């Protein structure tokens, strides 16, 4: 148990250190980077099967007993997120082999990529709120570097907005932590969950929960705190945007799920209704933003926002089925969204632009890319039988069951609008007329050689295949999500595992 829980953090760290030691050799860094990602993915899968078989597992770092030391704990949600994070790390690093430029590789792309994965896994596995803050910072530091690496002007502009808003979020988080510690005298999540049940001042707890909502709302790009995301995600190289799009906001959603099922459950009539309202607004604003844009990655960025709305919607409804829907949505979304960003990278490679009106004719030029795009885009929009359909189906079904008609209607409407903007990309980039070659200001595209092609297409096919699998064989994935949601809604085993785990 002890080793298994630490490895998802140790492997990326060891990989990053090895890459630093091999600073001068690009080839060695690539080999180390890929093998580290493979090792991480394997460990994460083992972790998931272990948690599935044995229930929640916990480890007390430094052998200090639970409320005093730092706890690492994995329930099913943590394990699922770790697997997804590692899977995206693996896919994107393969893709990077074919697309990241030499200069970025020489200035530490691989070490920082793995440090990012370390931070993300740390967030998923920690059982202590202050430690969560620390992992957030690890993740943010590495993401700052990855975002600014290369130092192109638009990149730095995006990075400044991203850094500023995330620092504000961290300040909120830290303030909330200080107040919480002053009130409760502990920051261990399981310990806090015990105290939360007998909270003396539920009003203060609700106030505090709002501080956490703002902090995590900024990270997960909730309405009205999302504006850093579309300002920065289209600026770095494609693999970086892809890993950001797949993981970073979802880390915020994960913490929201964790905190609002474990700690702040005193007044769900207020807090969770507010979350539900924010979810609806997030969906609508995100999709409207996407409709108004004509640049591939900007459209995708706005869609992240609207999709985060769906994920948080399940939390707002706060029934076991709805939370399961949220978790299923996260699984589906991370895979699909990362893949769409990867597609945008190849499209750029082939046509030399991200603007839809300059991308036309891709369906003739790259049929394989078109297939991948169709699967991912229609899954995102929720066309049956792809994974997105089931995710939305569960959420909408549940909101109808508990008679939240407004949010159900919003979800359906937004789904339709998502389809519209995916159709816009389809019509512009894949179906549209190929642009004339002698246009001024056009960057000459570079057709990739065979090896590069493998590196670019293999991860896309892997992820598209997964989307199809989830769509056609929904049962096991749904069972996983339902069981993870049960653990969240009934945290007694989690609390027991953390507080009573003795090495």
């Amino acid at each position: 148990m002890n080793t298994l829980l630490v490895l998802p953090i140790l492997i990326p760290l060891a990989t990053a250190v090895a890459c630093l030691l091999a600073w001068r050799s690009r080839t060695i860094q690539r080999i180390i980077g890929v093998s580290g990602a493979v090792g991480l993915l394997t460990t994460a899968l083992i972790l998931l099967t272990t948690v599935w078989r044995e229930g929640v597992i916990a480890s007390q770092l430094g052998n200090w007993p639970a409320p005093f030391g730092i706890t690492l704990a994995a329930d099913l949600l943590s394990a699922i997120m770790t697997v997804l994070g590692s899977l995206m790390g693996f896919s994107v690093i393969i893709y990077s082999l074919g697309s990241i430029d030499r200069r970025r590789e020489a200035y530490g792309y691989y070490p920082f990529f793995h440090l990012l994965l370390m931070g993300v896994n740390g967030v998923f596995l920690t059982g202590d709120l202050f430690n969560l803050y620390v992992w957030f910072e690890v993740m943010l530091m590495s993401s700052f570097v990855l975002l600014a690496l290369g130092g192109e002007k638009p990149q730095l502009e995006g990075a400044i907005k991203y850094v500023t808003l995330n620092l504000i979020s961290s300040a909120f988080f830290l303030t909330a932590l200080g107040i919480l510690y002053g009130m409760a005298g502990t920051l261990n999540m399981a310990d806090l969950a015990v105290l939360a049940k007998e909270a003396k001042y539920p009003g203060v707890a609700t106030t505090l929960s709002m501080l956490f909502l703002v902090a995590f709302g900024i990270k997960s790009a909730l309405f009205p705190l999302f504006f850093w995301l579309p300002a920065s995600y289209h600026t770095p190289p494609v693999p970086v945007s892809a890993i950001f799009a797949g993981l970073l906001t979802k880390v915020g959603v994960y913490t929201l799920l964790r905190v609002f099922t474990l700690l702040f459950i005193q007044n769900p009539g207020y807090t969770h209704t507010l979350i539900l309202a924010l979810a609806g607004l997030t969906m609508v604003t995100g999709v409207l933003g996407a409709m108004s844009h004509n640049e591939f990655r900007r459209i995708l960025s706005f869609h992240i926002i609207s999709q985060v709305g769906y994920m948080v919607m399940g939390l707002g409804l706060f029934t076991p089925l709805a939370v399961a829907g949220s978790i299923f949505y996260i699984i589906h979304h991370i895979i699909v969204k990362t893949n769409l960003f990867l597609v945008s990278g190849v499209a750029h490679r082939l046509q030399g632009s991200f603007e839809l009106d300059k991308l036309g004719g891709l369906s003739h030029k790259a049929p394989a890319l078109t297939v991948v795009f169709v699967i991912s885009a229609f899954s995102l929009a929720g066309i049956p039988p792809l994974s997105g359909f089931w995710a939305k189906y569960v959420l909408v079904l549940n909101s109808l069951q508990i008679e939240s008609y407004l949010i159900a209607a919003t979800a359906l409407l937004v789904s339709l609008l998502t389809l519209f903007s995916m159709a816009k990309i389809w019509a512009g980039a894949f179906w549209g007329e190929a642009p004339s070659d002698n246009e001024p200001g056009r960057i000459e595209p570079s057709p990739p050689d065979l090896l590069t092609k493998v590196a670019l297409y293999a991860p896309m096919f892997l992820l598209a295949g997964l989307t199809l699998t989830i769509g056609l064989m929904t049962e096991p994935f749904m069972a996983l999500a339902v069981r993870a949601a049960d653990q969240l809604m009934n945290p007694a085993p989690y609390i027991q595992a953390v507080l009573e785990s003795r090495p």
Partner: protein
Amino acid sequence: MKSVILTTATRYLMPMLLLLSAFLLFRGHNLPGGGFIGGLVAAGTFILHNFAFGVEETRRLLRINPLVITAVGLLTAMGSGVVGLLAGNPFMTGHWITIPLGKGQGLHIGTPVTFDIGVYLVVIGATLTIILSLAEGE
């Protein structure tokens, strides 16, 4: 622009500052001090050298790329955590051994100390990487 006062003073100050940094590092085991502050003092020493003699001289004095120092430090810190794992305890559990020095005396050394040494190296490496790159950029 070389200042005689600065270069002369630096020659005398450097050994003392390095000694101070080592003192702070080991004092941190039970008292205020530790790897972080010790590392900052050590990095400060090399930065002083950089002001007195210029970047190239400092790089020559260091011999190794500060990035490598960072990596080695990280490895040391990580390794001292892994010791606990290998002994079947959770990550970061403290373990001590006594190295016999003869006459019934011994050096009591444990993983918290090696962890702190790791931190010390990381701080030196990271600070110098930043400062020396900035100095070269001027």
